[in-house]
């Protein structure tokens, strides 16, 4: 079994989007994610998953320059990630197909964890 990392890229929600979203719609969105993640977990393939705040800090110049980021103007930010087991890219992309981030025009970045052992 190989390890893979899925990164969920999506456009950060604007204040307006948040204002307009109904409680009912939120619950529906929640259910989609829970079903998808739960499905992978139920197969025993999931290692861990976390959500990220939309912005943090970006460090550069040997750590001397610390700026706020990712930047407000960026179209897509990483909103969360999942670490999981899969046999190969075929399997992991198959699993990632159901990710609800696609429904809102987002994308999933799939990376394999290095394993030279």
């Amino acid at each position, binding site marked *: 079994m190989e390890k893979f990392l899925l990164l969920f890229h999506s456009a950060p*929600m604007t204040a307006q989007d*948040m*204002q*307009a*979203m*109904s*409680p*009912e719609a*939120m*619950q529906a*969105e*929640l*259910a989609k*994610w*829970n*079903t998808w*993640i*739960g*499905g992978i*977990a*139920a197969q*025993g393939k*999931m*290692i*861990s*998953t*976390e*959500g990220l705040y939309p912005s943090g800090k970006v460090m550069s110049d040997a750590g001397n320059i610390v700026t706020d980021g990712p930047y407000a103007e960026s179209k897509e930010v990483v*909103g*969360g990630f999942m670490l999981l087991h899969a046999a190969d890219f075929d399997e992991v992309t198959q699993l990632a197909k159901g990710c*609800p981030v696609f429904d809102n025009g987002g994308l999933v970045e799939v990376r394999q964890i290095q394993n030279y052992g």
Partner: protein
Amino acid sequence: MSESLDIQQLVEHLFRHEAGKMTAVLVKLFGLPHVEFAEDIVQETLIAALETWKIKGIPDNPRAWLYKVAKNRTLDALRRQQYFQKNIASHIAFEFDDAEKTQTQLDAFFLETEIEDALLRTLFACCHPSVSPDIQLILMLKTLCGLTIAEIATSLLSNPDTVAKKLYRAKEKIKRDKLSLDVPIGSDLVVRLDIVLKAVYLLFTEGYHSTSTDRLIRRDLCDEALRLGILLANHPLSNTPKTNALVALMYFQAARFEARLDHENNVILLENQDRSLWNQHFIALGYDYFKKTTVGTSVSTYHLEAGIASYHAHATSFETTNWQAIYYCYNLLYALQPSPIVALNRAIALGYTEGAVHGIAALRTIVGLEQNPFYYSALGDFLLKSNDNEAAEQAYETALTYTHQDSEKRLITSKIKQLKHLYATYQNSE
């Protein structure tokens, strides 16, 4: 692997209902004129829940999680925002300089009993007599039922701009007149409770009789009205026989919800409904509440309507319905509410009790339904029963000219066809 990742389902409408509860609690805290601040905090709380729960799964106690976040957001707002300091702080009965003390006092607002109390107060406030009934509905749906403006517009067959405008004006009025959240006491309570019950029933009938083609939306309105009705019935202040009668009535009617719409969401009349589709659980609940209505000394229209609905719910077929009892109830109802519609239903009940001829006679005395298709349809039915085919056909034709609903048109047309067929067979046999 973490255990919290089992697929855990949320109760249906949890977000929506918790939105209503949290808004009511915060409105009680901030004062009614600041309902928008309450709504903002609630919205932020729900978004935070969505963002966290979608990845990490649903916490063991979702409600406690929501209330904790809402409380924290409130504390932040109280501390930070100048607007809060100046305008809202004066409404709040406690000092919020001492963080620990504030936390404790805020906790008290989120106790289960206090939440019910806040909901009740907000419901009474939404039904303030100086607010017109249609806006009372909008306020209830927005503040207590957690519906967005777009959802309200769809539910009430209005457009979002109109709803937004009405809501804005209502909120301005609340601010201007400084409407309070106090639940009146004594005889004032009786008057106010009447308005609240009327608004809840209006919400129910909006869903029940809506011409919206979306069955879910219609169901939702009925469910919300039932929820608010039960809230009133459970609270000592508003638990009156009249309240219980309304809840019973809503349960009896809601029990028939699935049976009264066909696949295209057209209304199926009582006579033609598949009674096996009636929700027996709701009927049982209807009887439970109905039993509690007999303790008072006065009889309300809800009592009588619930009584009529209970006879229908009890009957295994249209033919075996206790029409005599129903006629009796309609007589009493007519004394309280002498409307032509009640007279129409009373005449129909009489026709089934005493015979078609009596039904026709009673129908002919009604004034005010000259353009009502159901009136002519009922007249046609009784004329047919008394073998006056020609007059029956005429009545159906008249009914046809006043009906706009396709399903209704189809129903009447099929009756006319049947009649003509009957007539043809009769002539052939001669």
